[in-house]
Structure formats: structure tokens, C-alpha cells
């Protein structure tokens, strides 16, 4: 199996002195579905955002498909970012544009500067977007403004946009944190199936341990910027969970939201 992401000894210290990540290392292979769990402030979000250089790390190396993103700048950074799709908690769409336009702009990284500026997408790209919109069942909304959609629909558009990039890796930053339980299930299923069928490696930040156990092929537990657990879901026992969240089990709500799932 090919390694698509190789993280070597990265640390991140913010200018206000907060040590968000200290000496984190792991690699991820093609087709893995990795869930990162950990309490708020443990560095989950920082870790995810360092991978596509939304946040600049203080030291260490991040190799994407063999290339070190921390050394990339402007054009070569853009070319590498195409390989990394990202799904956000707040969807991060352009609300005044139509749904299909929002999906299309996943292609911007592949277009010449001027064509992207003018929004001149090729017919092939449009067809690809339409196929994706069909797959996520938003056919009736293609010409609606993104602002008019419900939360779950917005997140589906976000997923389609990420897939349009034809990424090697999909980063999902708490994709279901703003959604209700039943919509959460739809979204998680969609991310899982999309990633699996296209053999995309997926890293998901989650707060819900039961959701993590259900989907993950591998779980990474983060606490105070350090990896405290890295293994298969069935290896995650109560003692480890207590260690990750730094509290005893009775203080945690583990199940409930997706019991029926």
C-alpha cells in the first residue's frame, strides 16, 4: 500500500505561547479512514490545518505523496493543495453563488489563473460536477444559492467540492459538529462511502467516540498536543479513553447520539 501522508516530528507553538502540537509523527496509507479524537484544545484542528498549510508549523516535516508541504510556497503549494480536499464544520461555501458553482470551484486548482478568475469551467468539469450532485442527491437544488440550503445539504455541497478536487487525502474538521444526529449519520455515511469508493485516505476530527468507533479503520487519540493512542478501534479501551480525555468514564457521554446507527 502507498503512503500518502507522512508526518514527521511536527510541533506548533502559537505566537501567544500556546504549545498546540509537540512532536507528532504518524503516516497514513491509501484508503485508510482515520479518526482523530481528543478534548477541545488538544490540537486536533491545528493538526488538520497544518497538513494543508492553513497553519504554518514551527518544526518538523509533512510529506504529501512524497512531497514536503512545509517547504512549498505559492505555486507549488497550490499544486500540492489540489491533492488535499477539506471539509469544514461551517461548510465554508460562497453563499451567494449557486450550488453547482460551489461544487465547480473545487477545480480552480487545475485551471489557469485567468480562466479561474472568470469562472470558465470546462464542459467535462461541469459534467463531473453534475454526476457528483446526482450522487449526493442535490439535483433539484443545483441552481439554488448555497445560502438557501439546510445545514446537511450545505455539508453535502462541501463534500462534493472536496471530491471535485480528485484528492489523495480528505481532511474533515468536525464535519458533523453543527448537525443534528440523523443528518450526522447521512453525512458520515457519505464521507465514508465517497472516500472508500475512490480509495481516498481520510482524516476526520470528531468529538463523538461512538461515531469514531463505527467508521474508523484506525483511531488516533490526541491529548495536550501529543499522540496518546494510535491503533485499531477495538484496541481503544476505557483506560485509554480516560487517558485521552484526562477524566474518568462517568464524566463522559460516550454513546447515545448514534445508538441506532
Amino acid at each position: 500500500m502507498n503512503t500518502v501522508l507522512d508526518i514527521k516530528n511536527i510541533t506548533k507553538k502559537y505566537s501567544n505561547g500556546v504549545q498546540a502540537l509537540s512532536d507528532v509523527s504518524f503516516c497514513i496509507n491509501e484508503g485508510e479512514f482515520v479518526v482523530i479524537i481528543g478534548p477541545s484544545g488538544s490540537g486536533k484542528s491545528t493538526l488538520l490545518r497544518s497538513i494543508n498549510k492553513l497553519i504554518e508549523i514551527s518544526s518538523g516535516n509533512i510529506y504529501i505523496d512524497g512531497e514536503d508541504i512545509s517547504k512549498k510556497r505559492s505555486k507549488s503549494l497550490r499544486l500540492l493543495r489540489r491533492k488535499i480536499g477539506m471539509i469544514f464544520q461551517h461548510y465554508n461555501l460562497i453563499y451567494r453563488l449557486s450550488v453547482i458553482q460551489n461544487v465547480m470551484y473545487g477545480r480552480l486548482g487545475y485551471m489557469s489563473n485567468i480562466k479561474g478568475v472568470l469562472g470558465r469551467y470546462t464542459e467535462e468539469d461541469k459534467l463531473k460536477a453534475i454526476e457528483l450532485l446526482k450522487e449526493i442527491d442535490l439535483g433539484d437544488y443545483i441552481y439554488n444559492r448555497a445560502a438557501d440550503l439546510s445545514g446537511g445539504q450545505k455539508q453535502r455541497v462541501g463534500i462534493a467540492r472536496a471530491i471535485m478536487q480528485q484528492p489523495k487525502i480528505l481532511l474533515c474538521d468536525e464535519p458533523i459538529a453543527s448537525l443534528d444526529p440523523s443528518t450526522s449519520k447521512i453525512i458520515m455515511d457519505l464521507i465514508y462511502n465517497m472516500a472508500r469508493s475512490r480509495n481516498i485516505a481520510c482524516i476526520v476530527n470528531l468529538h463523538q467516540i461512538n461515531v469514531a468507533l463505527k467508521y474508523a479503520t484506525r483511531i488516533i487519540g490526541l491529548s495536550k498536543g501529543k499522540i496518546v493512542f494510535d491503533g485499531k478501534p477495538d484496541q481503544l479501551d476505557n483506560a485509554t479513553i480516560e487517558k485521552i480525555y484526562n477524566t474518568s468514564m462517568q464524566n463522559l457521554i460516550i454513546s447515545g447520539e448514534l445508538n441506532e446507527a
Partner: protein
Amino acid sequence: MSEIAIIAQTIMPQIHICKKGKIRTYKEGQNRAINIFLIGTIVISTFSLMMLDIDWMKILSRTPNIGITFYKLSQLSFKNFDYTIISFLQTISITILATIYSVVIGIVLGALASENIVKNRFVTITMKSFFTFLRAVPTPVWVLLALVCIGLGPSAGIIGLSVHAIAFFAKAFSQSFECVPSEVIEALEVTGANKLQIFAAAILPAAASQIVAWTGLRFEINFSESAILGMVGAGGIGFAITTNIQGYNYGVAGLAILMVFIFAYLIELLFTTIKKKYI
């Protein structure tokens, strides 16, 4: 229609195809209103620029002079500093007095223009249109008129500024007063309170925070207005700036301009901090 468009349409019949046979990525007319507005703006603006018939070459050829002027202004000079500082204090006191008088008068007139206080629509509408008229005439015009009427001096400045500010406050305050729900007023009317009591007990406190916000905003405007009063002939720092520029005392004028800038900047900082803290 292109082949791809046909395939796309079989996959998803909801899609639109544009005249050239390509797949549409947005609904026809999604941005029509804005596009018409933009085109209209560009046409009217270009037309205006052409009609103005400005000799751009002449202005461009003289731009180095701006640098020279700025250089001269930056050689700050403390000559006649006592006169500069007195003019500056005069400007500030004009600002303060105009603001205070217009807030007080604005509250009274604003109340008279509020529909939930004065139940006579003829009165409120007449008042409101009168304020609209007063506001439509730029402040310096009012100052000029005051100058003509009562002669030189800070009083003309204060009156001119006040006319505009009163109209501004009356409109803003009456909007705030009208936001007080009529049930509150009726509940007090039942208890036998008279109009003045109702106004002081219910309406004024409810609108207090907005009154403060509007006053802060107007204070900033009043300062920059009173700083320029002198340029149309009233006193204050504006007069110092113009006479010194015209008398080639650039250093003195530069210092006066710097004082205006620093004070305006301080007011801005003060109000943004207050806003962040309390609103």
C-alpha cells in the same frame, strides 16, 4: 448542443443549457439586478467624468508640487503657537457646545416628531419633513447663513452646526422613540400619568443607549465639521489652517492639521473602545 451537454441532461434533466449549447452554472438572471446596476453606474460615472472636462494632464504635470507642499507642511513650526492652540480650543468648544445643545433640543423635537408620543400625524409628518429639509442643506451652508446673520465669531459656528445636528438628532431619536412598544405607553396612560411623566419614565430610558450611540457618532462628525468652519469664514482651527497656507506659513498650518488629525483619531479610538466594551 455539445455531446457532453446531452449526456449531462440524461443524467440530470434539471440542468439548463444556454444558447451556445453549454451547461449553465447559474440560473439565468441570478445577478441581473446587480449587473444592471453596475453597468448603469459605470455608464453614468464615465459620462460624469467626461462632462467634467478636467485637464488631467495639467494636474498630473503638477503632482510633484504635492510632494513639495507636504514637505513644507511637515516642517512643523511653533511660531504663533498660542494663536494656534487658542483656535484649536475654540474648535473643540464649538464642537462640544453644538453637540450638547443639539442633543437636548433634538430630544425635545424628536419626541414631538414621534408618532407614539404625539398622536397627531399631521404634526409628526410636518416635523419630519422639516428635519429632512434642514439635513439636506450641507452644514457649512448653515454656517455661512449664520455668519451673514450674526457676524463673525464662534457663535455663528455653533448655530450653523447645531441646525444640522438638531435635525440629525431629531430624526434619529424619533426613530428610537418610536421603537418603544405602544403597550408600554398605554399601560402608563391607564395609571393616569401625564405625557411628560410617560416620556421621562418609559420612553427616554428605553432609548438611552441609542441616544448615547448617536451622540458619539455625531460628535465625530461635528468635530470634523467644526474643524473646517474656519475655511468658509468662521473662526477656529480651520481659519488658522487656511490663513497660514495662504500666507505661506506651511509649518504652522502643518502643525494645525496634525492637531486636527490626532484629535479626530483619538475620538475614533475612544468610541471604538467604548463600542467594543458596551455594545
